[in-house]
Structure formats: structure tokens, C-alpha cells
């Protein structure tokens, strides 16, 4: 069985245009959950918006101006380029691509579906797989391509698939990640479900009142041990699991059965025990239900010692991108030997005895668990390890 190494990382979110900027924000703590500047919706809720117009993002992505691109595509391309650069991958002939977004380029299609004939150049975005194909084309990727859509666990599932493909010898190297931009569609959806926060998301806080949406692109390059020979390696993907809770369409069970199963299965794949985990990057969305059920699952398996935080207080909930974005943060925790603070936390929730990291601090980080849970009962856990 091949070992799977992380050789490249790239990300853009509300807390930075690239890895270096995001690292700085993770260290100093910032407040990025504020009123939207670019998102147009009657639902005025705080969000973690990337403070750049589409024109600015086009230029960040190194694309010529004067063309309208999907914001989701731009975020993906910016992150994917950085991941390939950090992995020093110039030969992309055997590179495979795994991508995800929640609803393709919904931020475009929701605005043009009524009068499509007036937007000929944007009609391609109605194709569900247009963004991954455009990213592949732009980056000269010719290998097999997969697109996963499992709501908020999408790109975590992408990393799991990439790892399985490399372990089994079906791929040598994979560019894997996700991209999602803010859209009227999603903010309305979360608002209609009554899980959007009116005050700004506070994961694991006693007074948490819901999700704040964010936007991001995040990609990783995973390579087999052999393909990565001689390269700097950020870490290893050691464990993974996906299960379905089969409980409710959008909510998790109070006791967090699905989460507990996913975590236990991932530990088993990694041949690790709960005590080996140095830091948990939780899904921690800031809803009453998710945070309670996730903390129950974590406490049942890890007790009250293992440091835990949700980074969604920094970035908002970036939906299909959050699995990859938080994988990048997990890898950075290993590289920097730091655990990230649970940004925006005021008063830790009373129902849990979980060891919540209040502020970013130094720590010995050997193995990181990252959780991502999606609607439809979809629970995924990943384990990243220091080499």
C-alpha cells in the first residue's frame, strides 16, 4: 500500500489571498465576519466575504481582464495554482484532478437563468462540471477527473478519494480541493432553514446562534511516496472515513453517532488511537445542533484533554471548500507546530467539557484530526500526520 504525502497546498479565503496571509491571520486572530460588500441579497446577515471584486480576483488568478468568470472558478484557480507551485509540479501529464463545489457556479446561474439568451458567454456555467473542466484546461491537467458533491463534506471526501486512489496505485499524484463563493441561493437556504447566524457565527460558544457563510478556494497536491521522492513534504494523509448517519435530512443526531463512527473508522485506517491525536480541527459550524452533537462525539472518544478548535470563526462556513481549507489548516498546524484558536469564542458552551483552544498557541502537533459533516447525514473524518 502506497503512503500518501501532501506536497503542495494553496488557499484563498476571507483571511488571506494565499497560505502566507492566512497563516498570519490564524496567528493574530481577526474579525472577518461582517456585512457583505459584494453579495447581493435581501438577507442581510454577517458573512466572511473575500474582500475582492471579481475583477481583482481575475487578476489574482493571472487571467486576462475583460472577460466575466465565475467567482467560484476564480477562487478555485487561485488556490489550485498556489498548490501546484508549492508542489513544484511542472509536469502535469499524470496529474489527476478531484474538485467540488456545492452547486457549481450558482452565483452566476442564479442571476441569469431568467434571461439566459442575454448572457451567451456565461451559459456554459449551467453545466455542472464546467468549473473543474475549466481548471483542468487552464492548468494543463490531462489525467482522470472526478467531481464530488456531498454538500459541506465535499472536498474532505475529495481528499479521501485522492488518498484511496494513490494508496491503491490508481493515481500517482492528485490535485484535490474545493471552491465555493457566496451566493444569494445559499444564504437564503441557510436562512430558510433557520440555521444562519444573525450576529455572526461563534462555534462552540454558549450563545452560538448559527452559521455564517464564507467563501474560499482550497487545493492540495497529494503524491505517492515514490512520486514525492526528493521533494519537501508537508505531511501525510494517514486516516480517512466516510459514513452516513441515516438520521435526518439536514440535522445531526444529538449524540453524534455518525461523527463518532467516522472518527473511529479514520483512527482505525490510520492505526492510531484517540490518545495519539494532538489537535482536532472540528467541523464546528456554530449551530446549536451541530456543535452539541460534534462535541458529544469528541468527548466520548477523546475526553477533555485533546485540544479542539473550529476555524470557521475566521473563515465562515465555506461549504464545499471547507474540507480542503481545513485540511490546509491542519497541515499548517503540523508544519508550524501550532494549534489554531477558536476565533470569536466568548463563553465556551456549558454542555461540553471539551478542551477548546481559545487562542492560537504553540504545541507539539504530530497527528491532526479534521472533521467535515454535510447535509444528508454525510460524515467525514481525515487524519493528517507529521512525517
Amino acid at each position, binding site marked *: 500500500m502506497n503512503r500518501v504525502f501532501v506536497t503542495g497546498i494553496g488557499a484563498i479565503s476571507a483571511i488571506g489571498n494565499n497560505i502566507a496571509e492566512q497563516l498570519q491571520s490564524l496567528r493574530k486572530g481577526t474579525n472577518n465576519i461582517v456585512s457583505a460588500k459584494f453579495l447581493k*441579497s*435581501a*438577507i442581510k446577515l454577517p458573512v466572511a466575504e473575500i474582500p475582492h471584486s471579481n475583477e481583482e480576483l481575475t487578476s489574482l488568478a493571472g487571467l486576462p481582464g475583460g472577460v466575466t468568470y465565475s467567482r467560484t472558478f476564480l477562487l478555485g484557480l487561485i488556490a489550485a495554482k498556489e498548490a501546484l507551485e508549492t508542489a513544484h509540479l511542472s509536469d502535469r501529464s499524470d496529474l489527476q484532478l478531484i474538485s467540488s463545489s*456545492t*452547486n*457549481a457556479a*450558482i452565483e452566476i*446561474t*442564479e442571476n441569469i*437563468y*431568467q434571461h*439566459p439568451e442575454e448572457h*451567451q458567454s456565461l*451559459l456554459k456555467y*449551467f*453545466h*455542472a*462540471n464546467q468549473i473543474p*473542466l475549466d481548471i*483542468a*484546461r487552464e492548468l494543463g491537467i*490531462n489525467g*482522470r*477527473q*472526478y*467531481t*464530488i*458533491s*456531498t*454538500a459541506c463534506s465535499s472536498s474532505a*471526501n475529495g481528499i479521501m*478519494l485522492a488518498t*484511496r*486512489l494513490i494508496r*491503491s496505485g*490508481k493515481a500517482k499524484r492528485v490535485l484535490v480541493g474545493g471552491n465555493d463563493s457566496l451566493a*444569494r*441561493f445559499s444564504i*437564503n*437556504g441557510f*436562512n*430558510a*432553514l*433557520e440555521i444562519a447566524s444573525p450576529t455572526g457565527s461563534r462555534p462552540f460558544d454558549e450563545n452560538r446562534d448559527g452559521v455564517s457563510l464564507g467563501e474560499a478556494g482550497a487545493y492540495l497536491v497529494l503524491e505517492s511516496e515514490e512520486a514525492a521522492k526528493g521533494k519537501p513534504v508537508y505531511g501525510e494523509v494517514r486516516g480517512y472515513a*466516510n*459514513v*452516513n*448517519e*441515516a*438520521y*435526518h*435530512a*439536514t440535522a445531526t443526531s444529538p449524540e453524534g453517532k*455518525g461523527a463518532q*463512527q467516522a472518527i473511529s473508522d479514520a483512527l482505525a485506517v490510520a492505526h492510531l488511537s484517540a490518545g495519539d491525536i494532538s489537535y482536532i480541527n472540528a467541523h464546528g459550524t456554530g449551530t446549536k445542533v451541530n456543535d452539541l452533537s460534534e462535541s458529544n462525539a469528541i468527548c466520548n472518544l477523546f475526553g477533555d484533554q485533546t485540544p479542539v478548535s473550529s476555524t470557521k470563526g475566521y473563515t465562515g462556513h465555506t461549504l464545499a471548500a471547507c474540507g480542503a481549507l481545513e485540511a490546509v489548516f491542519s497541515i499548517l498546524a503540523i508544519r508550524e507546530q501550532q494549534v489554531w484558536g477558536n476565533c470569536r469564542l466568548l463563553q465556551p458552551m456549558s454542555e461540553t467539557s471539551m478542551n477548546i483552544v481559545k487562542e492560537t498557541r504553540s504545541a507539539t502537533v504530530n497527528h491532526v484530526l479534521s472533521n467535515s459533516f*454535510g*447535509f*444528508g*447525514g*454525510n460524515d467525514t473524518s481525515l487524519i493528517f500526520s507529521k512525517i
Partner: protein
Amino acid sequence: MASYIISSALLSPQKTFEGTFPEEPITTESLYLLCAEPDYKQIIPPVRLRRMSHILKMGLATSYLCINESKVKPDSVIVGTGQGCTGDLENFMRACSEGPEELLSPIPFINSGHNTLAGQIAMASQIKGYNMTYLQEAASLESALSDAMLLLEEGTSECTLVGAIDEFSALSFKIFDRDQYWRKEAVNNLDLLKAEKPGAIMGEGAGFFCISNRPDRQNIELVASESKMNFGTEASVKWVTDLLNQYNLTTNDIDMLFVGRKGDLLTDDTSYAGIEQLFPTATIAAYKHLSGEFPTVQSVALWMAVKVLSGQQLPDYATLKAGTRTAKTILLYNNDLSTENVIIVRKG
């Protein structure tokens, strides 16, 4: 380790829900074909049915049928859907535009999540293992099948339910009408493959398959499920030939070829003639005149191939060219201009 198809179910515009090739196909003069749907109330409990969109009903009903036919209960679910839950996606987009945004029902939003079907199947049949959804247009089914094969190989699963589904969408029909993608005038579907005009007719369908690491009596092996982005950089014929090599097969091993001819004057020959010539003695079968065109349509061909390998006769209405050999190894090839796909199945 080999993978075997131990049950299959297909909901399509033909009467395939009964599990055998219909004696006569349904014919209509139309621009699109819709599923010959069962009475969902007889199949899906009312408490689940009441909030379900069209695609969820199609998928859940077909999943029940497939699971019932399977000797082994699946422990994992993988769904491939080309365009996803477009019906309620459109409904929620429309609700957001029409507003007021403060007063929207969340149900179309929930149903617009493309993994809702896989989640509903898990809940309805209490399948708590691996649960995945590929949203990848014409490569969705092929990604789902190869993921299932990998799960079985790893030993993570003993039996995985794989579904392929797309629903008719008035919006997609309108949007993709550029580039002469659809026919402009209604056509009798049985005349479609004469390919006298540009464009295809749209369709919809749900195909489900239980894939197991142990064969049943029928012993139908799923050999390969491959897809390739088609940027026109590599010739299709070379790709298919290389794949055959990779699976230790030669062109002579293929007894039957399913092609994705869709009746389009502009692309049918360029997409398929070369591949057909690669297998000069094979039976050539077609299906898009029966189902219409949709991203996961190769599930229709896969269901037909499974029926042929189970001993049913390929009907004349699906035969483009009759070969002489009994079909033991069948290759499915589809080319939708952005993606090319190959599935290979054989009698073990």
C-alpha cells in the same frame, strides 16, 4: 479482486421497471422523452414521499427495486448524477428571485443538495456505510462505478449500491439549446438514429446496480469503468485501444458494443464511427432513441448489457448491426464532446 453486478433496476422512458426488455418500445413524436413512472405511492412510504421532488421519487423507487432484487444488502451508496437535483434547484432559485427572501420554504433548498438522494436512500434503507455523490455530467456514472470497484477491492464494502440519475429539466432544455444540442422539431424516437438533422432529444432516467465482491448465479463481472476529459488532444480510438490493453483484452474479445449515438447529424459519425470500426465483427447496439439523451444515460446501456449477459435477447429495436457471436464481453462507449466514457462488463 473482481466486482460483480448482482442486481439492477432501471426507470426510463421505456417500460424497463419490470426488469425485462419490453417487447415493443414506446414511441412518440417529441423533443424529449419522460420516464414511464410507476405509482410512487405503492413504493415509497407517504411520510417520505410528501416532501420529495421528482428526481428523489425516481431515485428512491428505483433504489428500493434494486435492493429488493439483490441477494446481499448493500452497505454503501454511491450516486452519480450529471446535472443533479435540477428541479428543486430551479424552484429555489426562482423563490429567491421572486421573494420575499425572508419567507422562503427550506424544502426546495434541502432537495437541491445534490447528495440528497444518496442521503435519502441511506435513511430509507438504513445503509450507514460509505455514502458518496458524484456530480460530473457525462462522467458521473463512471466515477461512481470505479469508486465502488475500489471500495470492494479495499474490503471497505461487500456490496455497494450504485445509482445513476438525471431528471428532465425545462431549464436545462432551454439553456443547452445553444450549439444545436437539441432537435428543433419533434421526431419519432424510432426514427431518431437516422440522424437526418442536427441535435438530440432529451431524456431522463434512473439506473441502480448492486455491485458485490462475490458473484451471484449470473456471474456478471464489472471489468472497467473509465472516463477521460475530452479536449481533443488524444484520439478516441487510441484511448479505447490502450484501455483494452490495460485490461488484457483485445478488440476480438468484445462481442457487443453499445454506442451513444443520439441521432445528431453533426456529431454521431465523428464520435462513433471510428470506435465501431475497431470492432468489425461485434454486435452494435444503441439506446438513446429509447431513453433520450442525458448525462448519466450510459446507465441505460449498462442495464441492457446486464440483461443480455443474463440471457435475454437484445431486441431488434436496439440492434444497429447484428454480430454472429453470443455476447460474453460487452463494451459501452459514450462521447458527449467534453467527456468520453467506457464501461466493460463480461460473463464470468
